[in-house]
């Protein structure tokens, strides 16, 4: 049996019919064609599905879709500005080599943005804690922390 779900996704109102067992990850990726949140484990352990729910990072794979009724969901698709410019975090990740295979990158960006939205001058420990729920098997942790530090510290110079 399907139920109607209505929520705000990347500043747009979305309405879909979903089964009670469908997760937010299922709905985003397979019903709404939003592909930046990835599927890595379906148990909440790896972090590649992390998105913002009412501004807070959560695991889309552990969120039953119907429970986000009326709530606000943001994914990496919302980071890019209206005139097509990368968010400073995206630019920093790219410039610091903080992405190799790229699979963990959207989840990392979400966790990093959630941190900077709350704390614009995080310590290194704060940054490490913020992304400690996101696994990177390629081993970009050092560069990821550097990228976030660069943005927190005002970012790299332009040009």
């Amino acid at each position, binding site marked *: *049996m399907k*139920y109607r779900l209505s929520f705000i996704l990347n500043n747009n109102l979305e309405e879909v019919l979903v*089964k*009670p*067992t469908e*997760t937010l990850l299922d709905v985003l990726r397979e019903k709404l064609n939003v592909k930046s949140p990835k599927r890595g484990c*379906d*148990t*909440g*352990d790896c*972090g590649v599905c*992390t998105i913002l*729910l009412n501004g*807070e*990072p*959560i*695991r889309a*794979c*552990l*969120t*039953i879709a*119907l*429970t986000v*009724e009326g709530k606000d969901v943001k994914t990496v698709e919302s980071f890019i500005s209206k005139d097509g410019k990368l968010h400073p975090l995206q630019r920093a990740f790219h410039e610091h080599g903080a992405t190799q295979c790229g699979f963990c990158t959207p989840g990392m960006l979400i*966790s990093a943005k*959630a941190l900077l939205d709350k704390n614009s001058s995080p310590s290194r420990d704060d940054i490490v*804690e*913020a992304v*400690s*729920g996101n696994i990177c098997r390629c081993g970009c942790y050092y560069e990821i922390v550097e990228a976030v530090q660069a943005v927190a510290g005002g970012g790299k110079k332009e040009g």
Partner: protein
Amino acid sequence: MKEIMYFAPSKVDEALKILAEHRKKVTILAGGTDIVPRMNYYDVEPDILLYIGGLGLNYLKEEEGKLVIGSATTWSKLACDSLVAEKASVLSEAARRGSSIAIRNAGTIGGNLANASPAADLATPLMVMDAELLLASAKGERVVGVTDFFTGPGETVLKPDELIIEIRVPALANSESKTAFLKLGRRRAMTLSVVNVAVRLDTEDRTCYDARIALGSMAPTPIRCVKAEEKLKGKSIDKGLINECAEQAVAESNPIDDQRATAWYRRKAGTALVSRAIAQAAGLTI
């Protein structure tokens, strides 16, 4: 194919009515951090999914001197709330060490207790604080001490028509009442406990008159180490007593070999952790 029903009531009474009518067919959903992985792998196939996130059970308040926590309060809220830090810091510390930010944002205290893993990190702090749970069904309410709540791995006294409403945490005796929480995992984040320990020491003039020691991941349920607690009562705490007490605490446990650690390792680590926790609460360095 099975038709699954979903309910998201906005009042506790409505939720209790659904539980009364459908009982064992209902799967209660709060943060989903324990139940949804099982659903994703078809280990749990619910008939009815009852979402309790809209019932307003995420409150934190002080009532009659007790800290009252709504069962749907998240780990994140427990970790950063100033009232919890003031009234039950042992719980804040445990909440801060759990899992990772994204999981803490969803997981609830009620879920942690109802899921009843022997490793439940929020259980041992509540045990040393003598916390009580308010359970409700359509037939009425009852209060159960957290120490009496767990009956086995994944098992509690909760009946199929019952919901945990809130957790009531009595105030500490005075400013000389100190607590500590320590957790050993396989890593700093995203790990279930290999061992966790919570301790409370009530002292007067440097003599401990009452104590609580709770161990997690060391038995089929989180446990109180009552014989070890007795060793501390009426004594002034020193290094020798701490060692004796830690050994006694572990002797009351019954750890097993599992995916995270062996019983042998747990006993050694448990002894070290209990020692450190008592020392921390007593303000000693060992």
